[in-house]
């Protein structure tokens, strides 16, 4: 099959110059049963990760509506991370399969209209993967630091 949608060019180029003390804001939307429990395990294991992520708990990754991502990028966030149970492990049987499709299309569409692909990231983190959660958050934070503050389509005039 001739593919065009999987070969988008996303170069790393900050949209605006970041102020020297700038720290990115990352919204993490985690499913209650796997990733939220995994993030708790990261805490109980005292594994350290960058403090830029703000976590929102949802019951299942399938609860994540596409506009959660759009709204986050449009208002407060420089990047979004959504994490759920591994395929097959969904507490609600099939939720993450539906979610996976929506995530892919949303990510591609936002990339298409000018968001760097690293602004919206996804992961599967199980309740046992505390170390993985720390690693994922570190990677996402690193990626977004490289990209700089998100300026695109932000609601005007809201000082952070």
């Amino acid at each position: 099959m001739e593919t065009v949608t999987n070969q988008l060019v996303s170069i790393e180029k900050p949209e605006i110059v970041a102020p020297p003390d700038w720290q990115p804001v990352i919204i993490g939307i985690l499913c209650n049963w796997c990733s939220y429990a995994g993030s708790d395990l990261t805490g109980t294991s005292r594994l350290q990760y960058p403090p830029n992520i703000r976590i929102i708990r949802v019951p299942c990754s399938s609860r994540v509506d596409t506009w959660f991502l759009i709204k986050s990028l449009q208002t407060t966030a420089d990047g979004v991370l959504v994490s759920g149970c591994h395929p097959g492990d969904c507490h609600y049987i099939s939720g993450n399969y539906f979610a996976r499709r929506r995530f892919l299309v949303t990510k591609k569409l936002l990339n298409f209209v000018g968001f760097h692909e690293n602004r919206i990231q996804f992961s599967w983190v199980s309740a046992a993967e505390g170390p993985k959660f720390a690693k994922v958050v570190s990677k996402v934070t690193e990626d977004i630091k490289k990209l700089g503050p998100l300026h695109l389509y932000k609601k005007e005039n809201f000082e952070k």
Partner: protein
Amino acid sequence: MDYTKQIQEIATRLFAEDKIDVFVGYRLTGFDDNQVPALIRESKDVPLLVFNQKSVFNLSNYLKNDHTRNKRVGLVVKGCDSRSLNLLLTESQVKREKLYVVGIACEGVVDDAGQKMQNCLECMVPAAVVYDELLGEANMERRFIINADIQDMAAKELVQRREYFEEVFENCIRCNACRHSCPLCYCAKCCIDQETATLYNGANTTSSAFHALMTWSLHLAGRCVDCRNCEKACPSHLPLHLFHKWNERVIYENFQEHLAGVHEGDRGAFYKYSMQDPDDFIM
């Protein structure tokens, strides 16, 4: 492509046999060769009906209309229109038994300047897929091709795409005509208009246009039939099809789902899943 005579005959017959309450077709405007949709309710008005390459608007939009709800409706559909009709049937918005569908094997329609519409040049399903009666040659070719616009846009770099779409969102005046003219936007109240909390994006800013158009196009992802009612309605002439064609292509390349509305019962890519869906974009 001129089925004026046939459609008038069918409409006359349907009214005579008391099979319909209203016939939705096209008529000429009072003064030029442009057409306006016509909701014919009496057989005496049937001679107003026309159908030719200027019959552009997707009439399945009218099935959410006050005048057609719960009525027996005769309806003219081209290929793309029939696909949206199929989705409306699948999504329980209309009852098949209340419809008499005149399908057209469409040879393409033209815009105001008389040029064949771009979506017609790239049409994948020219002939109606739902009909009680089909006018024209049914065995028309079906193909799935990459839209040239999409290819050009995808070849651009991120910054160029960003600049291009920033202009799109900037020129959007948030009139929501795209949504209202879309046959598949039938929600009682669109999520973008709901005053609940801050989901509401009433203001006409670049940011809110981005929010509204993204949400809208994602709600149509896997469902859009490329009739371009939205583009026709857009007073700013925005290239709205880019979003829909892009989503369509993403869905086709990743989930092998395409041609929304061709199969009855198919709700689109977001309402099913496969274990084999791509997983490599997820950490």
